[in-house]
């Protein structure tokens, strides 16, 4: 038997062998062939923790930080270790009741399990922080305080310039694949935060950590050999004068519009006010979401940087440029006179462009008194110059002058969302009227800065710098230099002096004469600043919203002093009514005075206060604000009614239907209110773009402005 069975030992060995081969084959597949497991293992055990460096600061020209980093403190709890503390005492410190305490602990456990820390209270207010910090030892292990860096704005100003940071979304990630962002990161969304993101963000560090099966950190991987240190973001040195910026924002209180002030010698922006503005601190911290939606839905559009992202017809401020072109082309001299008997009849007597002060004007007095007829004649001569073979070529030549003056294209300022503005081209007119079916008289209102032409406040300020410098400018910019060098070449374009065309100094002198006259005896004479020679130009811009004429925009642009200018500035007050000299000019004069003299003369303080107090919110926006408020009210009323209805239904089952019908009837009455204003949610372009109004003014009787 034993002998017979001996062969079976071989069978058994064979079975053993086969089994082992199967196991080894499986192992071979797991360990050698299939590579996914080591990746899975890494995902399991290795945590690549990003170390966020502090973002760079933004400093003004006096090296004061206008954008800073501070720490906020979160109280963290590890529920499993928070047992056995003096809950009553703790609750007294935190100003909560025990029910709330237990609710938060349970929430923490639900969110993060009991052995991992979660936020108990975010962003502790300073007093609470101090109280807790003092007594923290009583709650050791269970509670600790975690610092979290946030952005702070020591001056609460320049919100639209510095911008804000926000959590990156999927679109941002798609656009910035090489940026090394991951969801949950913060990045600059607007303003300098966005345009200098590369410099501000610094270099992220990586800490490679090992975690266990509960995601608890066990230590660093390979003793930190694979870690990378974070490098702090670079500081930005700007040309902003934060005091002037604040002053400008104060002057623009309750007005819609903007101020842009440029140092003509460097192109550095000294102040850029967009009004209404907001407290930049609102967009940090825990209330961010709520505040953002509040700002976003505000009809006055506080999040819009009007200095670059709004464009208007330039109005009479445009006349200075026409004088430059006319003199350069030789169609006029400083002694050329045109008379205005009440209107410009160069295009026939019907629909004649009126002027306010009939009389005879030289170039200087034409600028000083902002004579429409004078500049209509100048442009007519430029366009109808016999040296041009056609209307197309003459307009194109004029366009090139405008482009040279920095209009009709983006200047390239270092805050995002800059607009181009518009300079009408022959192609535009061909499209509208058909080739050869238009001429100067079709667009004659362009000569006085109305109609098809539109500019941004920044472009006007830059144009002032150009005139002040007598023929050159630097691209306006806010950041002068970057701490640690401009590694990404962000500032290169701001270092090049731009001399677009050669105009002789005498031409500029003539225009300067006219602009000085504006302040001494012309439309801006009310805004003289004792001791400073200002050259300025007013503008009163007619505008329309959906064909309905709105109150005029008040424009003023200037540079000062005339000799060796240090500031080129412009101000627009949207839909203020009245004239450029009424609101914008005083504001500009105050800004100039503050910048050059550092203080406001005691005699002019009253003016500053008057300007600050006056409220000039455009009527359309006021209406919308009211609608929004009443909508809010309607919603509240509806909510109350609904609660009431529910209560009624709870108690009065028998009268269910009747009650409901009644409430509904009541409801509809309330709802009618918003329906009367169908354009509650208009998009922002309607508000500020002259797109509509351009067509409106085209065939309209051109009226007077000064």
């Amino acid at each position, binding site marked *: *038997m*034993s002998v*017979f*069975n*001996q062969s*079976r*030992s071989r*069978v*058994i*060995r064979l*079975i*053993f*062998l086969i*089994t*082992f081969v199967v*196991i*080894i084959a499986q*192992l*071979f597949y*797991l*360990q*050698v062939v*299939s590579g*996914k*497991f*080591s990746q*899975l*293992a*890494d995902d*399991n*055990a*290795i945590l690549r923790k990003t170390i966020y460096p502090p973002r760079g600061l933004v400093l003004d020209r006096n090296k004061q930080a206008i954008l800073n980093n501070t720490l906020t403190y979160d109280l963290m709890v590890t529920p499993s270790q928070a047992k056995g503390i003096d809950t009553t005492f703790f609750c007294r410190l935190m100003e909560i009741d025990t029910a709330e305490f237990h609710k938060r602990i349970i929430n923490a456990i639900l969110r993060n399990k009991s052995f991992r820390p979660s936020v108990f209270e975010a962003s502790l207010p300073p007093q609470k922080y101090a109280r807790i910090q003092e007594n923290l030892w009583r709650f050791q292990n269970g509670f600790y305080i975690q610092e979290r860096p946030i952005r702070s704005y020591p001056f609460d100003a320049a919100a639209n310039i510095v911008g804000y940071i926000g959590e990156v979304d999927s679109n941002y990630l798609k656009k910035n694949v090489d940026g090394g962002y991951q969801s949950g990161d913060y990045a600059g969304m607007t303003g300098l935060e966005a345009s200098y993101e590369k410099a501000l963000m610094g270099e992220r560090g990586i800490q490679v950590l*090992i*975690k*266990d*099966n509960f995601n608890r950190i*066990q*230590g660093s991987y390979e003793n930190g050999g694979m870690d990378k240190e974070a490098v702090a973001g670079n500081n930005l040195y700007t040309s902003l004068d934060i005091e002037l910026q604040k002053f400008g924002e104060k002057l623009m209180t309750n007005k819609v519009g903007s101020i842009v002030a440029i140092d003509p010698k460097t192109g550095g922006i000294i102040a850029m006010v967009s009004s209404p503005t907001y407290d930049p601190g609102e967009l940090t911290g825990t209330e961010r979401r709520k505040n953002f939606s509040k700002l976003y839905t505000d009809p006055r559009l506080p999040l819009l940087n009007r200095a670059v992202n709004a464009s208007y017809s330039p109005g009479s401020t445009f006349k200075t440029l026409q004088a430059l072109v006319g003199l350069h082309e030789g169609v006029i001299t400083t002694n050329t006179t045109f008379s205005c008997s009440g209107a410009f009849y160069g295009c026939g007597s019907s629909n004649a462009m009126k002027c306010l002060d009939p009389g005879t004007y030289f170039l200087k007095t034409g600028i000083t008194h902002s004579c429409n007829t004078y500049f209509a004649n100048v442009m007519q001569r430029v366009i109808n110059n016999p040296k041009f073979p056609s209307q197309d070529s003459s307009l194109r030549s004029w366009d090139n002058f405008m482009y040279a003056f920095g209009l009709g294209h983006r200047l390239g300022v270092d805050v995002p969302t800059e607009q181009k503005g518009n300079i009408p081209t022959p192609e535009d007119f061909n499209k509208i009227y058909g080739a050869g079916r238009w001429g100067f008289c079709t667009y004659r209102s362009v000569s006085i800065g109305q109609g098809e032409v539109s500019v941004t406040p920044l472009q006007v300020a830059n144009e002032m710098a150009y005139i002040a410098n007598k023929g050159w400018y630097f691209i306006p910019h806010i950041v002068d230099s970057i701490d640690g060098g401009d590694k990404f070449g962000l500032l290169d374009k701001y270092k090049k002096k731009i001399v677009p065309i050669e105009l002789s100094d005498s031409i500029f002198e003539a225009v300067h004469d006219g602009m000085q006259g504006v302040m001494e005896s012309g439309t801006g004479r009310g805004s003289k600043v004792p001791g400073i020679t200002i050259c300025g130009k007013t503008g009163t811009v007619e505008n329309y919203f959906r064909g309905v004429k709105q109150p005029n925009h008040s424009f003023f642009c200037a540079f000062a002093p005339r000799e060796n200018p240090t500031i080129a500035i412009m101000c627009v007050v949207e839909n203020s009514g009245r004239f450029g000299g009424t609101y914008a000019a005083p504001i500009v004069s105050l800004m100039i005075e503050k910048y050059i003299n550092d203080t406001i003369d005691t005699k002019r303080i009253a003016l500053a206060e008057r300007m600050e107090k006056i409220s000039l919110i455009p009527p359309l926006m006021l209406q919308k604000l009211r609608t929004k408020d009443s909508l809010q009210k309607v919603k509240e009323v509806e909510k109350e009614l609904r609660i009431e209805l529910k209560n009624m239904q709870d108690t009065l089952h028998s009268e269910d239907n009747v009650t409901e019908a009644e409430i509904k009837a009541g409801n509809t009455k309330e709802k009618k209110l918003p329906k009367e204003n169908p354009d509650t949610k208009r998009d922002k372009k309607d508000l500020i773009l002259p797109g509509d109004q351009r067509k409106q003014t085209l065939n309209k009787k051109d009226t007077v402005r000064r």
Partner: protein
Amino acid sequence: MNQRNPAISKGIDWSLAGIYVLLVGIGLTAIFAATYKEGDSVIQSFLKFRTDYSKQFYFFIIGTVIGFFILLTDSKFFSATANLGYVLGIFLLLMVFPFHSRIKGTESIIKLGSFNFQPAEFCKIFVALALAKYLSRQETDFSKSRSQLIAAGITLLPAVLAILQSETGLALVYFSFFIVMYREGLPSVILLVGFAIAALIVATIVIAPNSLAIILTIIAACIIYMLRRQIKRRHRILTSIIFLWLLCVGVQRFAVPYIFKNILQKHQVERIYDLFGKDNPYLKKGESETVEETKKKLESGSSYNVRQSKIAIGSGGIFGKGMLKATQTRYDFVPEQRTDFIFCTVGEGFGFTGSMVLLGLYLILLFRIVTVAERQRSTFSRCYAYGVAAVFFFHISN
């Protein structure tokens, strides 16, 4: 054991002992790697019997001492006490029912102070001895089916008890004793049929019911085609093939689902499916898992164990991550890794190469035991040796 050299030292198969010591060494290293945390004082914990590896070391020493005593004892002693031992083993297994303490889902452990005692594990030795004793009896004629049935009963009784203690894994160990019986003359047909049934059940679990039915049909058709000449002569072959086919499909389509659904407990079915890395399809509609439940199961359930151990072994690569550098096993991703899943430590730390070495050692051990067994003169010794080999084999291949 080698009868020609009565001296004890020469009776030892040194290569076997060497392999044994080597394997214990690897085991110790693996446990050490799995449980060691930075900063532990190795010597202190070794002396204080606190850590798993020090425990294992002391067990090794105790084992060696016991081994010495066994060497000194006459083999007839074991033969004489085998039945007594078996009775004791069964008794201990029965004692579990009133005295067990529930640890980690099994009900098979008796707690004696700080010492956990699992009779089902101990019983293997007694069963091996008792089986050897029964087979070596003069009056046993193993070619008779009656004795075969008795032998099967001896092995399967503790298996049934183990199942009742929800220790399915341990129960399966006892099936390995069929290898011993096979060596002693159990007809090959039984082994073949056993394998076939096992293969069919595994196939049922792994392959989708319909495709398996199709596969079975194709196999049947092929066999009929190949045997068409014989079938022409004897129609009985055709009938039996069709009968077998029907049986297989029946088992696959109805019997297995019926057992899984109605006879076995839900967690048992789940465990069986986890063994193959699949989800249990026999959940009733009402209790079909929600997404969260599935996720929870992934995180904590038994399929998590299998998944994590696969990840651990798989991430070892060819040469492994090196001692104490294995992330998965060191940071407790693999549960119970110091015991049931200890192989993961080797797989991750030393990679395919290390695993090969370990498996190679075990294979040599098995072959060596078989060789030694064949050298034995007494059937009892041979059977016992085969029993040991079988148990080892089962544990390894599991």
